[in-house]
């Protein structure tokens, strides 16, 4: 039996800051983190292929695919590979992040959505298995015809092998030290209509997939690059100022409140609805400053323009944001 909580799900600052509730080794160099709302309430909904932006306590922001169970609304799970050339993201997660720590979370957003089909082929390389894991579960649930080719350096470094066992012959596990490079043409077969191919993994794998699928019908292949740590502008943990261009008011936003609430507290009402960065009602035009986007709406290109933000969850990277209010 499930029980519904009479209290509404957490909103605003509470959904944008989550608690690390477990940290487990999955394979050599791969661990999973589970995250939950400090209040224990519902997290924002997600779909297979989604990632979250994890804002680490050291100020670095990293993106990780969700690989848990979307039917459990109170937990996220992400898989994190220890990168030898880490610039501080994965090393921090592996060596320093502890159960009980708080992390900032943006999204979930999905640039790699599973589209409807009766036939799927999945190709995962290494940690690229993470977005594929919920996809194969869903394909199975829908009764689709699907197969997964999963490669890695060696068996011991490949995560989630146990969880994949239940799918039997649909999953081909091909560690490189046993089988050599993945046989993509052999796995994909002849080009044909009606098949959706999903692949996630390191750059060379995806380049090989693009080549191999070159003569498949358009839109057959969808890929997501597993991006190694990149240096990004650090998120702020300090207060910032929001200047309202039309009214001339300036408001200080401390880490424990949202921009929306900070504005409300000085009598500036901005219409909102979900207060979770999902519905888009509180879209506000940004005139200056770079927002720290925590919503589930804008894609990467739209974020980079920095011309609008959803103030129920998004914050600021700069000392000062100027909004068209």
């Amino acid at each position: 039996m499930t029980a519904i909580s009479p209290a509404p799900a957490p909103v605003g600052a509470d959904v944008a800051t989550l608690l690390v509730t477990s940290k487990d080794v999955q394979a050599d160099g791969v661990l999973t983190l589970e995250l939950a709302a400090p209040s224990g309430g519902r997290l924002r909904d997600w779909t297979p292929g989604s990632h979250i932006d994890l804002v680490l306590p050291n100020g670095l922001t990293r993106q990780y695919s969700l690989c848990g169970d979307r039917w459990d609304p109170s937990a996220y799970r992400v898989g994190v590979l220890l990168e030898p050339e880490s610039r501080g993201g994965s090393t921090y997660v592996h060596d320093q992040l502890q159960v009980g720590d708080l992390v900032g979370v943006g999204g979930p957003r999905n640039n790699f959505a599973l589209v409807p089909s009766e036939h799927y082929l999945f190709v995962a390389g290494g940690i690229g298995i993470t977005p594929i894991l919920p996809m194969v579960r869903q394909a199975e649930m829908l009764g689709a015809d699907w197969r997964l080719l999963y490669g890695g350096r060696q068996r011991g470094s490949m995560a989630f092998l146990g969880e994949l066992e239940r799918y039997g012959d649909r999953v081909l596990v091909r560690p490189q030290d046993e089988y050599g490079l993945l046989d993509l043409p052999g796995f994909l077969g002849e080009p044909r209509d009606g098949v959706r191919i999903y692949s996630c993994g390191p750059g060379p794998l995806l380049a090989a997939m693009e080549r191999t699928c070159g003569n498949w019908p358009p839109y057959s292949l969808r890929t997501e690059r597993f991006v190694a740590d990149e240096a990004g502008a650090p998120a702020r943990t300090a207060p910032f100022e929001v200047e309202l261009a039309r009214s001339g008011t300036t408001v200080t936003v401390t880490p424990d409140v949202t921009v929306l609430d900070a504005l409300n507290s000085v009598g500036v009402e901005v219409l909102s609805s979900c207060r979770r960065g999902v519905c888009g009602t509180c879209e506000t035009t940004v005139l200056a400053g770079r927002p720290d986007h925590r919503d589930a709406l804008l894609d990467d290109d739209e974020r980079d323009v920095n011309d609008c933000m959803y103030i129920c969850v998004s914050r600021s990277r700069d000392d000062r944001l100027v909004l068209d209010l």
Partner: protein
Amino acid sequence: MTTTARPTAAVPTSDVDPFSHEVLEDPLPMHAELREAGPVVHLSRYDVHAMARYDEVYAALVDWQGFQSAAGVGLSNFRYEEPWRPPSIVLEADPPKHDAPRRVLQKVLGPRALRRLHDGWAADAEALVDEVLTRGTTFDAVGALAATFPLRVFPDAVGIPQEGRENLLPYGDHAFNAFGPANDLVAKGAPRVAELSAWVNAQCRRDVLAPTGFGADIWAASDRGDITPEQAPLAVRSLLTAGVDTTVHGISAVLYSFATNPGQWQRLREDPSLARVAFDEAVRWESPVQTFFRTATTDVRVGDVVIPEGHKILMFLAAANRDPRRWADPDAFDLSRDPSGHVGFGMGIHQCVGQHVARLEAATLVTALARRVRTIELDGPTVRHHNNTLRAWESIPVRVTLD
């Protein structure tokens, strides 16, 4: 259920018929009664559980895992009963099937996609207001404005032809009646169902739709494989079903709100930027969409009550929107209130995907009206339009004075 579970308390029961004409004429006393009866009330007439308090309605709306939509969001349970038309691929679907069509519609109707429509709709609104005011300063706010403006801008935005647009309102009216019981309101629409459905379905075809617009955007998504070609016409159908009557009644609601609250109209005149807030406050206050059903996917405990798996749950959005546990002075239409968080558009993964379209239509019309109209008041008895799901007006006679 296990034997260790807490005992189920006696559920308060009511024999009220929420779909009777008496209640549809004025549902507010019933809403108050059901809210006071408890967090969950059993409605004996239909053997369904009902929620009328804000917290429970909100929690049920967002909990798609426990409260499913694929068994229908009306009284009819699709597990046992044949739907009157092929089910909606968004409203009457659950994850995972719900994911792809929802994602496509959310992008097509998203706030960023609507920016390009703003200036044109603002000009259309001014033109309509000028036309109406040229004819005179007494008019029916429903016929002249609320039922006219959405039909001028929305079908064009979707990209359907001019011919036959008069079918949109009766089709939507029947679709929203069909969420209720098979009463006289459903019977009234039945004779035209086949004809209207055939017309609506024909408008969803790619070769009928304009080369640009929401309809074309949906078909383009199917070219990319984001949805299937079989889903594209059903996604267009969702816009034509849910995008017309709802906004007509939403705009009626905001016009009625102002006509009966002169102080609030003056407030809007002083600060026209309140137009968007005014619309949402009117959606909270009147709740054009009064109710939706869900179906329990498991034995769900709400407070001390267990709703058995497979049972229908009736959520009174309108009652939640006036729950004094959530809203101060809930019966007042008040522009100084922050209506954010009302459930008039629903909440969660099924929240109205066209809400930004509705807000844009309403805000441009109200803004155009505020530019020219100094006062607006009722000019005769108003007439309700009864619908099993919608709170609607047949007629709102008004008298205005101009600057």
